């Protein structure tokens, strides 16, 4: 009896001390990046709890800006969208690199992300998931689309869709033989490029069925055959490939656009310990493979692609021969202010008849 009492007291004490260290991690991320089984494993191992909010790049920045960087403990914006908003709104805090197990990361990707998100001496992000923007084509019905500008061909009139967002501007610019990334530092030159792209996209508008907004909308349009060619993410193409073998992702000849989604700490997050624990937990190769299975994209985890299922690997290799990988244009950091110019351009394209 006494022994029992003693044991249960110990148990209660142990529980309460675990509760004292446990934090709630409010994660601001993308769909598929925090699958339920990974959250369950993390909660069981560390005692922290995880609350997931799904979002996208613009909403993440808007949400954090509205609260001056509070309300979330870990965010996953793309690496090119960190330095600009940070300079403008101060919504993130620097990472303490000693808390992160850097041996879990693919070194080249880690260095590239650190370099792109550095302000002064401070690093603001480490990489997590990467992928590309390119062309999703119904190969049974489309033969002459090799690059973004081919979406304006008469052969696919009325059966094309793309987003009215900045990746489309950048993609078309490269496809037209321009180099928008080189003009990032020079607003006048960048405006010149935007003007040319605007003219092209206005001219191309007759070809577009509708501008797609969410991934599911695109998949519906593609599946039903209402559109046959689109500018979209690689994952979208690979998922559609499961339903219809004719549909697949193709890297455009001017180069797919490579993005990396990262981990960044919101300026006024309260659960840094849990945030670092989450980063180190999900970057383990076997967990990273689970996230790849759920999100459809590969991660920056060293060895994380080893356990990924063969079907996805095969699709990846079919879409990306070595020269296409070498040709990927990685988004450099967007300087503050450029997005205002792009916004005005996108509005004008939207309004053009």
């Amino acid at each position, binding site marked *: 009896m006494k022994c029992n009492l003693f044991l249960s007291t110990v148990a209660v004490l142990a529980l309460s001390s675990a509760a004292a260290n446990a934090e709630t991690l409010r994660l601001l991320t993308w769909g598929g990046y925090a699958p339920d089984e990974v959250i369950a494993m993390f909660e069981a191992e560390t005692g922290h709890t995880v609350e997931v909010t799904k979002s996208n790049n*613009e*909403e993440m*920045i*808007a949400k954090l*800006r509205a609260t001056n960087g509070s309300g979330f403990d870990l965010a996953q914006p793309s690496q090119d969208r960190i330095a600009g*908003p940070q*300079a*403008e*709104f*101060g919504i993130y805090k620097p990472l303490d690199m000693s808390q992160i197990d850097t041996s879990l990361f693919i070194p080249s990707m880690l260095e590239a992300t650190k370099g792109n998100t550095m302000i002064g001496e401070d690093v603001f992000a480490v990489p997590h998931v990467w992928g590309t923007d390119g062309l999703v084509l119904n190969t049974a019905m489309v033969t002459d689309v090799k690059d973004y500008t081919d979406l304006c061909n008469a052969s696919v009139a009325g059966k094309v869709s793309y987003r009215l*967002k900045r990746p489309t501007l950048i993609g078309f610019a490269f496809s037209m033989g321009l180099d928008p990334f080189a003009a990032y530092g020079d607003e006048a030159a960048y405006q010149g490029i935007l003007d040319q792209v605007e003219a092209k996209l206005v001219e191309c*508008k007759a070809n*577009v*069925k*509708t*501008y797609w*907004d969410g991934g599911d909308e695109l998949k519906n349009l593609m599946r*039903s*055959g*209402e559109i046959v060619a689109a500018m979209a993410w690689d994952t979208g193409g690979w998922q559609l490939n499961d339903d219809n073998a004719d549909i697949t992702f193709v890297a455009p000849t001017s180069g797919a656009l490579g993005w990396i989604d990262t981990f960044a700490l919101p300026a006024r997050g309260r659960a840094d310990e849990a945030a670092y624990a989450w980063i180190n937990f999900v970057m383990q190769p076997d967990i990273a493979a689970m996230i790849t299975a759920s999100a459809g994209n590969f991660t920056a985890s060293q060895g994380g692609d080893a356990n990924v299922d063969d079907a996805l690997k095969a699709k990846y290799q079919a879409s990306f021969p070595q020269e296409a990988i070498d040709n990927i244009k990685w988004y450099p950091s967007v300087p*503050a*202010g450029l*997005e*205002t110019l792009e*916004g005005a351009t996108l*509005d*004008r394209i*939207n*309004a053009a*008849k």
Partner: protein
Amino acid sequence: MATDRSKLAFWLLLAPCLIWLVTLIILPHVGMFLVSLREKVGVREYETSFANYAVFLNEPLYWNTFARTAYMSIAATVLTLFIGFPISYYIAKLTRGRTKTTLFLMCLIPFWVSELVRTFGWMILLRETGVFSNVLQYLGLAAGPVEMLYNDAAIMTGLVYTSMLFMVVPLVTALDSLDDSLIEAGYDLGASGFAILREIIIPHAMPGIVSGCIVVFMLSLGNYLTPILLGGKDSLWFTGLIYSQFITRFNWELGSAFGFLLLGLSSFIVFVGLKLTGQSLGKTMAQS
């Protein structure tokens, strides 16, 4: 003493309404107005000016969208009135008891699901591979798939459908209070059906018509989902512009200015509407 008490009771009863008005309506608007007066001159540098309003005036694109949203909303309101009036008249005057309740309920049922679901329903019906297109092909009325989604007519359909209830309810209430004997008297005196409608029914229902129109117009003007989901590549809506300024362009200053312009526009159109119909807001609200 007694007056003190009743004063206290008055303020206590008023308090929830005041708190709601001040904290949720007035304060955010004051904040938004201040934001709309900030002009961005550099990274984290702002100056007070009317530059954001000037942007609106100097860019025809914003003007056109503004005007388009206004006339589309007015068209939606008129259309809703024309469709809603016969329905309301039928419910209020030509049915009794259970039929009346059933018909009224049928107007209400679509509102048991959210606006998003209703809009997706329209997308399933109207799209190229959707229900209408397939039925037309099956009946041999169309040779190939017909695209009915992604145009202004689709937006109009969605807007009218979404706001029908808000027109029918005030109209039924107004028509219910019309004494049937007045209509009979009109017939006895030899008036035609049209004359009765013009001389008796419409004047009596005017407060209901005006309040229904105000609500439907406001709902259409401030609608975001329907124009975005049903509209096509050319279908700009002013609320969509405000959303994109706030969320995708991080330009809160311009977004706030747009918000205020929309507030001004809707108030102005309602004011003009009231003046044209010779109604006053107080009269409308008291009678309906």
